[in-house]
């Protein structure tokens, strides 16, 4: 039996006001979520089976957001589990409509698979709707991974919301990884330029209002004067995701390369079946701040050595939680590092900024030679 607290808000404010979602009591939400996923009539075969080898009773012992730390990180098990086992039995009707199966990773080891439900996907897509509120009809060009990746599917739905079509090019990150392993970074260059050439053809011949891509590809577009001119002329919104954008690059994009075109980031992952949105306003020292759709997705930032939360304003490793009746993916330590940022009031976990790979500094190993 589903508790109403687990139901997604029905009518998001069409104007996309970011504060329009109803506040829920966090402890009540977590308790209802545990009952849903660990009751035989509503939980998924995966979690009902997995519960037997947990060293705690999720329903009795997990009562707060902090208690989610009891869970082991199970995402590695998503590499092998049949996707049917991930479907909560309690989902029915509209809730049970599957949008697709998406994969994360696959560049190292075999991919992990996640089931995306239509109802959830529409909600997740609407999470940063307010950024697009004034755009009106527009076609979308997604220069981003498609195939089994969530990124491309979201772009298609974005186009539909703007009564437009989605143009896309094939981009296979797993093949790029193989190429780099075999032939070095030059091979990736060649591939990236091949992608940009295809994007250029679409930008030249079609009316593209929304450009969705990754920072490295946007950077490659930025060095072609003809593409910059086309984007400035036609594109009314640029959405980036899938990689780090430092404050300096963001400023150069905003002030020099694409002045006047909104440039908004999404930080997400297939392992949370969604993303966090860029907070409107100035950001932090030029960096985009990302707010997750709490309580459905919530971040923590932890000290990699201890697993404890870092203080706000400090860097650490990102822990992601997907907490809906559609899926439970708790306590997943991601590779990314980020700055922990004060979340909006009442939010679970924290917001993040400056997401990127682990910062490395020059080591002091002595290397022979005079330079």
């Amino acid at each position: 039996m589903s508790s109403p607290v687990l139901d997604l808000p029905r009518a998001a404010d069409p104007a996309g006001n970011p504060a329009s979602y109803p506040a829920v009591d966090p402890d009540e939400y977590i308790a209802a979520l545990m009952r849903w996923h660990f009751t035989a009539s509503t939980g998924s075969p995966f979690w009902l089976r997995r519960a037997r080898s947990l060293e705690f009773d999720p329903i009795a012992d997990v009562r707060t957001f902090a208690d989610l730390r009891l869970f082991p990180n199970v995402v590695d098990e998503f590499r092998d589990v049949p996707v049917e086992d991930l479907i909560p039995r309690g989902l029915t009707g509209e809730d049970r409509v599957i949008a697709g199966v998406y994969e994360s990773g696959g560049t190292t080891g075999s991919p992990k698979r996640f089931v995306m439900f239509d109802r959830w996907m529409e909600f997740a897509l609407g999470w940063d709707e307010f950024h697009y509120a004034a755009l009106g009809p527009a076609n979308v060009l997604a220069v981003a991974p498609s195939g089994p990746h969530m990124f491309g599917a979201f772009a298609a739905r974005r186009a539909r919301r703007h009564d437009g079509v989605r143009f896309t090019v094939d981009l296979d990150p797993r093949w790029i990884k193989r190429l780099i392993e075999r032939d070095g970074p030059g091979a990736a260059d060649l591939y990236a330029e091949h992608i940009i050439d295809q994007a250029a053809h679409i930008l030249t011949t079609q009316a593209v209002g929304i450009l969705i891509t990754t920072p490295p590809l946007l950077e490659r577009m930025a060095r072609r004067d003809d593409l910059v001119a086309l984007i400035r002329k036609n594109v009314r919104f640029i959405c980036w995701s899938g990689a780090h954008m430092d404050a300096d690059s963001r400023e150069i994009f905003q002030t020099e390369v694409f002045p006047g075109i909104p440039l908004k980031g999404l930080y997400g992952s297939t392992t949370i079946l969604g993303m966090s949105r860029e907070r409107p306003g100035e950001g932090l020292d030029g960096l985009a701040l990302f707010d997750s759709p709490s309580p459905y997705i919530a971040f923590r930032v932890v000290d990699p050595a201890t697993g404890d939360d870092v203080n706000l304003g400090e860097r650490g490793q990102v822990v992601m939680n997907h907490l809906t009746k559609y899926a439970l993916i708790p306590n997943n330590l991601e590779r990314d590092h980020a700055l922990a940022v004060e979340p909006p009031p009442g939010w679970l976990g924290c917001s993040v900024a400056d997401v990127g790979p682990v910062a490395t500094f020059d080591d002091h190993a002595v290397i022979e030679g005079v330079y």
Partner: protein
Amino acid sequence: MAEFLHIDALGPTGPYRSRNRRPLTSLAGTPIGEISQVPSLYVRRTIAAMRAAPVLAGAQRLDALDAAAELFATAPLGGLGPDEYVRLVSTASGVPRAVVRQSVDWIVDVLRSQRTTVELAMPRGAVGDWRDERTRAGSAVWARRGEVFAVHAAGNTPAVHGLWPEALALGYKVVVRPSTREPYTALRLVEALRQAGFPPATLTLLPTDHDVADVIIAEADYAIVYGGQDVVDKYSAIPTVLTQGPGRSKILVTADVDWREKIDIIADSVSHLGGTACTCASAVLVEGDPEPLARALAERLGRIPSLPADHPDATLTVAPTASVVEVDQYLHKVAGDARPLLGGDTIVDELPSGGAVLRPAVHLVDSSGAAQLGVELPFPCVWVGPWQSADGIAPLRDSLVLTAMTTRAELIDALLDEPSIINLYLGDNPTTWLRPGIPHDGYLGEVLMRTKGMIRTAVGPAAA
């Protein structure tokens, strides 16, 4: 140095200060300023703008190089007069003041000599300008293979900036990525060249971290990269990257020569520029017993005083104590069974003014095949070993400079034929001898230029 220093990028449209900056510190660890670390987006846009910029005409380039020599030597640049600049490099990066001055003189000489250097490097069958009369009858024209040349500089001695001006003379646009440890010389030289007439879009300064430095190298047509063996290994397979790594320069003294007369030249070869140049000798091979030579060398090098880098008589490099200790530990590790005659206890000599001097080290090895003979470290560190003619030239391979103190013409022929010996000096010449116009690692023109055949009749400008 009361003022807080800002080393910013000098881009095609002006200076650029990034939010991402790294601290610049004195040898004692005191913060003295910050250096911008530009993102790859800035690099790509800069190099695209450089490609779009016109090339300065040949005569103007050479005039500008002459003028830059004057400015570099005497003018206040980037807010620093020439003496202030020398003091800053010595106090901030530990390069002895005298070494900075020698390096400045060297760079000035290089800038002034580009007219002749370019002439010397050009094949005799070629003309430098297609308008030359010789193309009417048919001749080669010397032409650029690319347009953008990147420099990934090092901070051990300002003299590293003596190579790349040749690329400007040849008409390349140059992007310099300065050393984070010593960015001051790169900044001063770029400022001088710009004031002398090189437009900003033909010469830029882009301080970056190591990852973005790779983007500079990838975006440029050709690059010169200074670094250790790791850097050489990383780039050696890329034909458009010239690596300046360990020089492993050596001296050979055969039995027909009395080394006692040469000991000053040998000691100079080891300690010149504080032992920080890739031309400094790191191995000496002696036909006969090497020990007396090694002892005499240890005695000479042992006399060099430990002084703060900004002392007028200082010749030894100063570095943060922790890093000198690391070098010392590494030396002990690689020395293994070699017999220390100097510096075997420690090379670390801490200074009250901050940092530590890297004292010279002399070790004796027992065979010409000893692995230590190939170890080059960034201070006067020399390995002395025996050699006999039966050993052949194998122990002398892989040398940027080999000074052969010998009268045996057949040996000299064999050394000249050995491809891994880059420069061969004979007799009373230290390995550190350099003159503008004499190649250091070939002429840059050998890599950056090619000949193109041309024959012409009366087409083109009527005046030509």
